[in-house]
């Protein structure tokens, strides 16, 4: 009887929320890290199971109007020291620069590349950017399925490669577990799985994310080998002066 009352009570609490609140709480569950320095390995798999590895160092500074990040490519050796600087803007186009060490050249990139492949992986530039809840509109009312919220969201940015995303968010931790992404014409395009999280200094951090393109059967996995937050990083370290 007590169990029944608990389930009914929990359901009442869950259904009292709207989709926007859940999206905000989900974003907040992984926010507050101020700055981070991470080393990640990205594994690319083609439809036949052939694998290829990329290694990255990611420096990030959290900002209310959009994060700043500097990604330095560490591996394979032919792209070593290539750097990507991104300054995210919530309601405007992001700013991006690419540094190519062979030419000693810093090149401006148009933000229309959002839907483009990041390092030939199934992750696009917008997939690896901060998933700020303000970048989306939401479908109400909220659906609750087996202790998970079903959040249906629509990118506000017309340059996004997606028309709709459905995210399944853990009702206890507010962490995304699984997502289905639809392309611009509304076809089932990608599936994303958040396979592992860990808490660092009381903030949830993703450890392993897999994304699969259901149209090409190619997939990519990002694994955070090292992850440090509240790291001393100045804005200058994630600016154009770092691109050399």
């Amino acid at each position, binding site marked *: 009887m007590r169990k029944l009352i608990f389930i009914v009570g929990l359901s009442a609490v869950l259904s009292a929320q709207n989709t926007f609140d859940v999206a905000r709480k989900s974003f907040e569950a992984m926010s507050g890290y101020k700055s981070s320095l991470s080393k990640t390995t990205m594994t690319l798999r083609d439809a036949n199971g052939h694998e290829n590895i990329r290694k990255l160092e990611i420096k990030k500074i959290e900002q209310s109007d959009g994060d700043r990040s500097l990604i330095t490519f560490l591996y394979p*050796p*032919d792209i070593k020291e290539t750097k990507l600087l991104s300054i995210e803007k919530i309601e405007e186009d992001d700013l991006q620069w690419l540094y190519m060490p062979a030419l000693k050249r810093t090149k*401006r*990139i148009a933000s*229309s590349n959002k839907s483009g492949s990041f*390092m*030939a992986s199934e992750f696009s530039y917008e997939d690896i950017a901060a998933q700020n809840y303000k970048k989306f509109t939401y479908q109400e009312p909220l659906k609750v399925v087996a202790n998970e919220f079903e959040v249906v969201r629509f990118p506000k940015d017309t340059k996004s490669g997606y028309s709709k995303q459905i995210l399944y968010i853990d009702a206890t931790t507010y962490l995304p577990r699984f997502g289905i992404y639809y*392309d611009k014409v509304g076809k089932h395009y990608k599936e994303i799985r958040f396979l592992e999280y860990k808490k660092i200094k009381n903030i949830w951090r993703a450890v392993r994310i897999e994304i699969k*393109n259901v149209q090409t059967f190619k997939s990519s996995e990002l694994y955070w080998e090292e992850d440090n937050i509240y790291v001393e990083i100045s804005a200058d370290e994630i600016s*154009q002066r770092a691109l050399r």
Partner: protein
Amino acid sequence: MKVLVCFLACLYALHAMNLSGDIRVGHGDYDSYPTESVATGELKVQLKNETTQVHAIAEFLYSDRYEQRRYALLRELELRRDIGSYSLSLGKTIRFLGALEGYNVTDIYNRKNYLLDPFSKSAKLGTWGAHAIVYLDEASVSVSVKLYEEDQKYPTYPTPYRFFSWHYDESLNAEQSRYSPSVLGVYTFAPTDFLEIQAGVFQGYDSKRTFSFSNATTIAQNAYRATKALLVLNAVFQESILKLEAVYTDVAKGKNLSDYVQIGVGAEHGMYNIFGTDLGMYGEYYHYGYLGESMKNVDLSEIYDNDIFLALKWNLNDVGSTQIKGGVLHDIKRGERVVRIESSSRFFEMFTVDAAFLQTLAKKDTPLHFTGDMQRVTFGLTYNF
């Protein structure tokens, strides 16, 4: 020797050392010259701590057939120190200036490495000098001082990369001492998020060179001093990037050369996720204007006098990061054309394969005609470490 001692002292003072580089073996097939097999490579040594960095890059080229295409050189040797908003560096360095993809009229600081490939943007030689940058809020001011003008090597007949049919005396004839400094100052700023401007002035030995006969069969290169004003604009407009490069060069009287202007304008547009691939499209125009009576067609830069460049870059986004690039440079005035198609792909992480096709459709007795073989196919295998 002093350079080596200095480098070893830096090795001792700094701790984090990084070694990287590549070795490529390739083959070149030419329509009017014998084929060649080549080996090229570079080794980069980098040492750094929080504020100081030393790096050296050595490279070599070995052709089994053409003796002129054999060298080993120190391309870069730089000591850099960052102090707050200042960055100071000393040594042999490469600087890049420009925004366009095909040809950069403002990229005047370094000499090209014509022995390696006159049509490659990355084939450049380091320049001895000093460099300082001051970073302001949304801007920077840099001053680069070239302290020495080196001899320039060119491949001559009978190599497929030839520039001349005559003997070439590589000793540079400099207007003043080779040690006369050349100074480049550049102010970089961004008035808005979507517009970046680089404005610069240069005083010193011009990147353009003239040639004169030192005897009946031998020519030599002449370096003369000039003053330049240059401008680079990069503007993000909707989903495209618009670019402008312009240089005005003031040449002192009495050199049979007039002042001249070089302008390049272009646009770049990307299309993404086309059946899982990405496509970049580039359109550029270059103009070379003589502001008075002048010797003409004395430097390779003058082939970009009234030319359109159209190119595509196709990223297949496969596990090998396969990339296919193709471009056409079309001279509107002379009807000359250069077509280049190249492709590269990575396998087993450490290896890349590449192939390139170049066809030059040149009119007789033009600067382009002197650039050597009219059709070439190259391919190679590179080990990266």
